[in-house]
């Protein structure tokens, strides 16, 4: 994995113009494509849906799906059969081709995101030198799909939902992109494999004040990017029916559904790989990596540990998403947009500078020492706390009768929510 990045390695020069693929590479890719992307990941996603229904049921003191198979474990299969045997309705006057292309685009976006995640040592599907940028580019495809879905349906509510959804996705994409900049800064590379290596050496990035702040920004922004409660304005059933996928039925709706959960999984992997140290079990310890030797069995052992821990972290992330969903209420449109631009974006920008300071304090030395790490906390911790306090204070201040007639938004909901259409 590492030697692929080394410019002096002969592997890199395995000439690019001939595009010849060795059998080993072809086999590897075939395995990834068939077993990973077409088999395992959709399977995981199907059982995520089951898990969510079960978890939500537990939270609400119900039992959840329990009819199909033991514990309802065959429920996803039943759902798939149901979706496959339903009729696809395309409304008259809809733009057929675009109506078809929209869910495909959303699915493609989710799939492409997974292509650079380093699950364990040597277990990234591909290691691109600018992997993180690629990942952001892949995730930026989905707003287009959402917009096209709403536009092509020729339905007022669809279009309304799509416009709202795109405005929201677009607004939260900025803090999301800005929140990964500190990681690039610390890793000194855009490659996710290099970032993982950096976390082995210098601890998880979340174990620092700027990292923690970046993680929180990322977390909130990704919940919003995934259109999940409390940021599910785009598909607010009580206001605009089902938003941009109102006119989607049967399997076409199923594709949107699948894409949503696939994205949840992808974002979970992303957050784990970027902030939570990938498959490392402990924040500041090199534990499984120091077992790594020359022999293959050792590599397999290390990889098993890494993979298990990685998946466990992703599972925790997913469960957290479910928890948030059943606990919090939907935000109002204006607050939602405000939050992205007036809280998250300034914080994310300032946080980049804090990350630079952390780099100077801790990582510049070249080796992680406890003293340096504590020093980093002492220097950046207060800065981060102060920045958060300042942003909140400014916003409060402006909200409570500041200039420009900001006014206080709706105490008691008497003001008509301009974003709400009569449903």
């Amino acid at each position, binding site marked *: 994995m590492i030697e692929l990045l080394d410019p002096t390695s002969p*592997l890199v*020069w*395995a000439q*690019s*113009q001939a*595009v010849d*693929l060795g059998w080993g*590479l072809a086999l590897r*890719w075939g395995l990834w*494509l068939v077993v990973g*992307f*077409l088999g395992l990941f959709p399977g995981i996603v199907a059982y995520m849906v089951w898990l969510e229904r079960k978890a939500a049921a537990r939270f609400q003191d119900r039992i959840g799906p329990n009819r199909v198979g033991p514990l309802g474990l065959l429920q996803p299969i039943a759902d798939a059969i149901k979706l*496959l045997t*339903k*009729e*696809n309705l395309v*409304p*008259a006057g809809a733009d057929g081709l675009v109506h078809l292309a929209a869910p*495909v685009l959303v*699915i*493609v976006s989710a799939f*492409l995101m997974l292509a650079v995640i380093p699950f364990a040592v040597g277990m990234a599907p*591909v*290691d*691109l030198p600018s992997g993180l940028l*690629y990942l952001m580019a892949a995730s930026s495809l989905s707003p287009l799909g959402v917009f096209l879905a709403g536009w092509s349906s*020729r*339905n*007022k*509510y*669809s279009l309304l939902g799509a416009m709202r959804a795109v*405005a929201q996705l*677009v*607004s939260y994409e*900025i803090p999301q*992109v800005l929140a990964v*900049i500190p990681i690039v*800064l610390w890793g*000194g590379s855009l490659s996710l494999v290099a970032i993982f290596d950096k976390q082995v050496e210098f601890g998880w990035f979340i174990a620092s004040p700027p990292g923690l702040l970046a993680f929180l920004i990322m977390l909130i922004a990704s919940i919003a990017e995934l259109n999940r409660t409390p940021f599910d304005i785009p598909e607010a059933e009580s206001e605009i*029916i089902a938003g941009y996928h*109102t*006119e989607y039925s*049967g*399997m076409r709706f199923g*594709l949107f559904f699948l894409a949503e959960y696939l994205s949840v999984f992808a974002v979970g992997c992303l957050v784990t790989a970027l902030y939570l140290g990938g498959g490392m079990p402990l924040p500041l310890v090199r534990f499984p990596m120091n077992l790594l030797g020359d022999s293959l069995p050792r590599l397999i052992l290390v990889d098993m540990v890494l993979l298990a821990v990685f998946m466990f972290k992703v599972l925790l992330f997913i469960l957290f998403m479910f928890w948030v969903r059943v606990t919090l209420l939907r935000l109002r449109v204006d607050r*939602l*947009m405000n939050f992205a*631009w*007036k809280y998250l*974006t*300034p914080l994310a*920008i300032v946080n*980049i500078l804090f990350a*630079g300071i952390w*780099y100077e304090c801790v*990582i510049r030395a070249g080796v992680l020492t406890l003293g340096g790490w504590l020093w980093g906390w002492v220097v950046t911790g207060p800065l981060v706390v102060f920045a958060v306090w300042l942003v909140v204070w400014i916003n409060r201040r402006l909200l409570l009768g500041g*200039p420009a007639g900001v006014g206080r938004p709706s105490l008691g909901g008497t003001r008509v929510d*301009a*974003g709400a259409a009569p*449903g």
Partner: protein
Amino acid sequence: MIINNYIFIGLLLLAAIGFALAPLLVVRLIAPRKRSLSKSEPYECGVLTVGETWIRFRIQYYIYALMFVVFDIEALFLFPWAAAYAGLGLFALVEMVVFLVFLFLGLVYAWAKGVLRWA
């Protein structure tokens, strides 16, 4: 090697498209298809739809998209800067602070102008 990696991405793209289209093909084969007038109407709460789908959107949407584009380009400059930061030292930090201050002023202007308010 770079192109080879992207060939995998290309294959993955095709696989994803296929993965999305395959179930639709199955649906075409096994699901019932009966056209009817009321089925193909736009769904608007069971009421017959009135008028064109002609909604004029507020300018607000444009402002958000505009800010998004501007800050996306800012990120475009931040990525290479961050990747190169380790080898650059303090002056790079100062240059970036100057750059960020420009952008921050833009954000503050939009904020002060009140366009960030979703009225």
